[in-house]
């Protein structure tokens, strides 16, 4: 018997975890909007499991691939608002991301409760 239904719930759970971590990073960016020399961070968009290849490192002397740093977004988008103190948080941008993150999270949460509803139907206690 396949556990497709449970896979869906697992995927949604991972997604919700990702949004929670992203919300924390965004909160950090907003609260440090006036800290000198602070650079905003963001999470990399989640990639499907097994999609990303990593180099095997069998010795601590091996160099890792340049670019992606443990799950953070390696891209460095053009920032047009860097204050003289070296802070490059753009509040409008962050607000946009917060709102987007919230609605994506709510989408995942609604899908999760729909999945729960499906299971209730399956065990005969729907409605």
């Amino acid at each position, binding site marked *: 018997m396949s556990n497709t239904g449970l896979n869906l719930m697992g995927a949604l759970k991972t997604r*919700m*975890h990702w*949004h*929670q*971590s992203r*919300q*924390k*990073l*965004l*909160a*950090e960016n*907003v*609260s*440090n*909007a*006036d*800290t*000198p020399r*602070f650079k905003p961070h963001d999470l990399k968009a989640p990639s499907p499991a097994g999609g990303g290849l990593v180099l095997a490192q069998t010795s601590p002397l091996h160099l890792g691939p340049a670019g992606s740093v443990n799950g953070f977004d390696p891209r460095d988008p053009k920032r047009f608002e860097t204050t003289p103190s070296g802070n490059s948080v753009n*509040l409008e941008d*962050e*607000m946009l991301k*917060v*709102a987007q*993150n*919230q609605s994506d*999270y*709510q989408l995942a*949460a*609604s899908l*999760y*409760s*729909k999945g*729960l*509803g499906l299971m209730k139907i399956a065990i005969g206690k729907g409605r």
Partner: protein
Amino acid sequence: MDLLKSIAVAASGLRGQAGRMRVIAENLANADSTPDRAGVDPYRRKIVTFQGRLDRELDAQVVELGRVERDRGAFRTKLDPGHPAADAAGQVRMPNVNSLIESMDMREAQRSYEANLNVISSTRRMLQRTIDILRA
């Protein structure tokens, strides 16, 4: 839980901006504080500084107020020979507070404060939605 942590991080931002507002209010209130005799410095404008701190419990960089520094700029002078603090030439030194700069600073603090509030309410909606799963 990460959502509660993001609320805590945003709350540290609120605290920082509130402290900044306090210093701005102090500057504005003392915009005309002259000494009562000659040779004494009038009120010197205060400048708030922010610094990031890695909170190990939250595993995030929270913000906190650093030292409140003094503005080293020159004082304004005003001709008022009858003032008790006037020097030999009749000039009175006034505080180096510029109310335009202060009100701009205040708008900026307000904007950052609102952004932090926005993060908190958005995070609370996410939490609420999570709790709603139970009711489904």
